[in-house]
């Protein structure tokens, strides 16, 4: 992908050097006006040069160039070679490498893709600094091997020259706009659209929708003709009508319904804060059929997991599980239904005379969450994992279900112990106690070896906390969750989006550092690289996570559409890694 973009950028620069006309007077043309109306995908970048400048300033502010991540990924021989080439080129144009990138990003960029026998790509660049671009191109043309490839009709009978780069890319300039295409015909179509001789994307209803939907301060936008793409994939048998895997089907089935019935998807990117980028997407589809009603459910009032010590992240989904499970034959294919049937049979073995679908799930209403947090150990297992807690609302007034679920948990632990004994592995001890006046069933190992294996990450505990049922892999996380749930019961927060995913970079980086040696080992064995190279990649990846303040995905599924918002926050990494602050393991 990067190679393709680099080639496209090079070709664009070549074109301007060979045929850059004087800057047009008045308002510059819109890049989207050069995309033919029949593109299947259109992407726009607004004021790219300014965003490049802001991005460069942000990297300096965060100290990225002094990080292990920079050392690992941007000081490889290949990258250094490319940077030297770019630096020399930029110097010849009187700028630096960032200046060259900004000039190439231009004032307005549009990219269109048409799918016919193969993907045909058209890129349109409206430069802001035409002089710098022209100087840059003088250098590029010496290396690119571009050759003239005839002309197409321009304005006032003045032909527009086309340049071919080894037959793989075709470039031209028209009214101060640089055009690049992967085939000559697409380039001619783009010129015709730009000159008003053929329908243009900017004159289409699709573009009107983009204009009306995308905020004016968005840095980039994308539009896809999903109906056409879907038809092609359906013909190729690559668009499943149902998601085969049961869990994935119950999580994504609503989104899939909208994606399967919509004619378009629109997305845009907004730098909503100095260190934050938000990408939003909108999928409008047909109304949910009755079989899918379980996907549209109100979220539970929020209790914040963010304050849990060592919080790593969470996944939250809001479903009417009872309705979904009752429609499983419609929502799943035969194989998926079979897999689910096996799961329900196994669950039945533990639940006894209580039926999961008929007796338990009708009482599970609201948002089910899986929270992850760091844990501390007497002796750190290898690998060290975070603790997880599954927290689900459970309307269980008299506590009958909770008692039944505790019995099921005891049977499950006994079963696990039976298997462990067969394998001569340590077994769980079970204990019941109370936490903040709530009964808790917890487990522990009676002896911890000096170098514990992976199973020592898991010492499950279960409890009914207020109107929630909690299954955690450590008692201390269960207690932290209990604190948050009980405190929120007193002062409930506003309802959040129904479906969420969040992850925080710093604790993940700490966990990876704990497992660094194993990660290096795995890379050496899996990739066949030496220790130095393996360590550089692992350390670089961990250092990259230090810059991730957080990443969040929120999804709201309504009757006729799905809204997605992905937010990423960057942060300056801590000077030294800090240990987790949660309590000790039991």
């Amino acid at each position, binding site marked *: 992908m990067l190679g393709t973009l680099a080639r496209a950028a090079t070709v664009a620069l070549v074109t301007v050097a060979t045929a850059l006309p004087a800057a047009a007077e008045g308002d510059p043309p819109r890049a989207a006006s050069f995309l033919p109306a029949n593109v299947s995908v259109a992407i726009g970048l607004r004021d790219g040069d300014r965003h490049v400048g802001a991005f460069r300033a942000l990297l300096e502010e965060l100290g990225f160039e002094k990080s292990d991540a920079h050392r690992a990924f941007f000081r490889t021989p290949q990258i250094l070679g490319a940077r030297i080439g770019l630096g020399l080129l930029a110097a010849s144009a009187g700028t630096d490498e960032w200046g060259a990138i900004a000039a190439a990003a231009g004032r307005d960029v549009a990219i269109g893709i048409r799918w016919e026998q193969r993907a045909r790509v058209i890129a349109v660049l409206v430069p802001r600094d035409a002089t710098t671009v022209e100087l840059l191109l003088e250098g590029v043309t010496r290396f690119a091997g571009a050759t003239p490839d005839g002309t197409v009709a321009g304005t006032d009978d003045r032909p527009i020259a086309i340049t071919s780069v080894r037959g793989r890319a075709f470039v031209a300039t028209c009214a101060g706009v640089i055009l690049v295409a992967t085939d000559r015909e697409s380039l001619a179509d783009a010129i015709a659209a730009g000159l008003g001789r053929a329908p243009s994307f900017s004159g289409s209803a699709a573009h009107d929708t983009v204009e009306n939907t995308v905020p004016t301060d968005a840095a980039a936008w994308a539009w896809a003709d999903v109906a056409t793409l879907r038809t092609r994939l359906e013909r190729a048998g690559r668009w499943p009508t149902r998601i085969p895997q049961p869990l994935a089907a119950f999580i994504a089935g609503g989104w899939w319904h909208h994606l399967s019935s919509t004619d378009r998807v629109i997305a845009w990117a907004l730098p909503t804060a100095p260190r934050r980028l938000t990408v939003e997407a909108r999928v409008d589809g047909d109304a949910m059929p009755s079989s899918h009603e379980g996907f549209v459910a109100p979220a539970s009032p929020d209790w914040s997991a963010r304050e849990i010590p060592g919080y790593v992240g969470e996944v939250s989904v809001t479903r009417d599980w009872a309705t979904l499970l009752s429609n499983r034959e419609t929502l799943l294919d035969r194989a998926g239904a079979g897999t689910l049937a096996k799961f329900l049979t196994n669950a039945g073995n533990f639940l006894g005379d209580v039926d999961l679908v008929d007796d338990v799930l009708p009482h599970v209403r609201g948002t089910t969450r899986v929270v992850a947090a760091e844990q501390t150990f007497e002796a750190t297992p290898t690998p060290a994992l975070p603790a997880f807690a599954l927290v689900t609302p459970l309307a269980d007034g008299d506590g009958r279900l909770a008692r039944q679920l505790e019995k099921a948990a005891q049977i499950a632990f006994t079963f696990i112990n039976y298997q462990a004994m067969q394998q*001569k592995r340590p077994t769980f001890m079970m204990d019941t106690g109370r936490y903040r006046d709530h009964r808790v069933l917890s487990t522990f190992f009676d002896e911890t070896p000096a170098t514990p294996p992976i199973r020592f990450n898991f010492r499950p505990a279960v409890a009914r906390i207020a109107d929630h049922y909690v299954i955690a892999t450590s008692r201390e996380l269960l207690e932290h969750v209990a604190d948050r749930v009980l405190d929120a019961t007193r002062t409930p927060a506003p309802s959040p989006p129904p479906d969420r995913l969040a992850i925080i970079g710093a604790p993940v980086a700490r966990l990876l550092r704990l497992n660094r040696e194993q990660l290096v*080992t*795995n890379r050496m*064995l*899996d*990739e*066949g690289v*030496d*220790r130095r190279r393996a360590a550089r990649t692992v350390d670089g990846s961990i250092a990259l996570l230090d810059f991730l303040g957080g990443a969040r995905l929120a999804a709201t599924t309504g009757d006729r559409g799905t809204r997605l918002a992905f937010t990423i926050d960057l942060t300056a990494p801590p000077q030294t890694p800090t240990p987790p602050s949660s309590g000790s393991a039991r």
Partner: protein
Amino acid sequence: MNGAGDPLRPFAASSATPWDHAAATHLLRRAGFRPTMQEIERAVGAGVDATVDRLVDGEPEARRASELDALGDGIARRGELDRLRAWWLQRMRYTTRPLHARLALFWHGHFATSDRKVKSPTLMLAQLRTIEAHARGPFGAMLRAMSRDPAMIVWLDGDENVRGRPNENYARELFELFTLGVGHYSERDVHETARAFTGWHQRRGTFAFRPRSHDGGDKTIFGETGPFDGDDAVRLALAQPAASRFLAAKLLREFVTPTPNEVLVTALAQVLWESDFDVGATLRRLLKSTAMFDPAHRRTRIPSPVEFVVGVARSLEIRTRGPVLARAIARMGQRLFEPPSVEGWPGHRHWLDSTTMLVRLNAAVAATAPGSADRLARRYALRNSAAARRFATTIALDGAPSTALAERLHALDGTPSAVLASALRIALTAPEYQLA
């Protein structure tokens, strides 16, 4: 015996059997894995004696292999058997001591112990370490060490071998599979030897002798009577004439020919006997011998999957992904640390059937995909098609392709790296390449 009829007399190059690229490749392949062109050139220049001495004594280990070696304990401690296989294979791929690696593999099959019963990668790794430590030394010392090896004790039920209720599993395999072979011991020898090993247990992965479980009474083994223990049983087994012949035949099948004749077995047994079963000294003599380079013995042996895959990777100087290697080798019928039975892998013709042959061919095709030989062509400065063809036939076909293959190779045209990749693909999928 060191006369003209001695098959173990030192190899002397002649016009009929010159010391050339083909001979050097044969030696390196049999006493290690398929070699790189650089290794072949080096061997040709150094001569037989120096090359064999270097193989037997070993060179300083490559940094890469040493780095890998240090990872084993951590992998085993985490109980990751699949990754332990990948680890061992990567060590074989990058070691500068290929004969030592081959010997470890050979003894792993000889003392076949499976994690399916041991259920402890840590113990399996400890056994491999023991094997590696004794692989070229006196066989008696290795037997004594293996008799105390915790994985072996678990594998052959040593913990159940107690005074008054001897468990004969280890004693039986000691004679049948490790030292003598069927027909050279009696049931009484087995029973009495089991008594000698009573109390040789393991506790938490460490050898533990339990005096209270040991039967200290007199035993009669091979006609000798005394209060023997396990070490005595090993000594008595190796004193049997059949022991040197048993081991000689096995070494010959591994390194010289799958069908050694009586003269050859007798000669090598004599070497073993006279060296007090010193494996390194015996191999040094064998690898320098006329028998080793006998044209009748060349390309007669079907390499194991591990030899095949590691050999391809080493000779083509491919960067390998350990788990991918391990999976391919398992599909070819060899799962390290999990031999199929106490007898190990049957080997030779048993390695090939319609399924495993297809897997080998697929691996060969994958290793020679378009673009795969670019680095090799650059490294050896192959400037034209002829040089690329010559290179491929030297490292893959001992420089002597069949007429049909030669015609196919001659028809190749294109850039040197493209011709090299195509030539290697033709060579690696040829029937002659499947024989080492």
